[in-house]
């Protein structure tokens, strides 16, 4: 039943939001964002199955490409910040406060 897939997608998305707002480890926050992208992908594929059209599959592939690009950039930034601050705490990374 399609409802079960969509409920699972909603649950995973909410767990991703909880991970982003309640954890301070920068890797956990990053992987929670990936979790939210995956929940959106599951919804895309489920709706694509309902309408029996392939557009959702193409969008899921685009989301995967965006996630790969995001992973490369975010990990580069994490390495840079770790080199400068020696910490993995998101509370320490407050350079934009001016």
């Amino acid at each position, binding site marked *: *039943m399609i409802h079960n897939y969509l409920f699972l997608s909603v649950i995973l998305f909410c767990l991703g939001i909880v991970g982003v707002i309640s954890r301070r480890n920068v890797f956990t926050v990053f992987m929670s964002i990936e979790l939210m992208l995956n929940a959106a992908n599951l919804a895309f594929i489920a709706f694509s199955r309902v309408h029996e059209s392939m557009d959702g599959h193409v969008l899921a592939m685009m989301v995967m490409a965006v996630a790969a690009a995001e992973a490369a950039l975010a990990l580069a930034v994490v390495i840079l910040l770790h080199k400068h601050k020696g910490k993995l705490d998101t509370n320490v990374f407050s350079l934009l406060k001016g």
Partner: protein
Amino acid sequence: MLVNLLFYGFAVLAVLGAAGLIFFRHPMNGAMSFVVTLVCLAGLYALLSAKLIFALQLIVYAGAIMSLIVFIIMFLNIQPEDLPREETKIPYILGGLVLVAPVGLLLGKIVKTMPNFSVDLVGNNFGGVKPVGLVLFQEWLVPFEIVSILLLVSLVGAVVLAGKRGTGK
């Protein structure tokens, strides 16, 4: 019947993996439990007869992206004392669940208003490489090219960001 059983098995494992990602203190444990979630999602894609996305999820997500993340976690050589001290982790997670619950309930209500379809496995090459490729290169050609530019930009950005050496300290 078997399909239902598989769905519930994959769903429970995926939610457990996501909960582990949120709860584990060390990011390596979190990454390993997130891999469980990704593999279970690949199984769910297979149940939705998305064959190409099933393979891509396993190869690109669970394979490439997660091995990149695990590589970086190992590369930084994180000791337990380097991790942020999160004494308030459990209350924050519970508070976050309380905050997010209305959003989840609203989304669940929206899902309930939709008509329910049964999703059996469909044949006639639905979700295979050829049909998805045809849709990708006929109707989604411009977004595809934009994604390729995005990948190029992120490649250059990653090299510029991480390749700095000998600047100051």
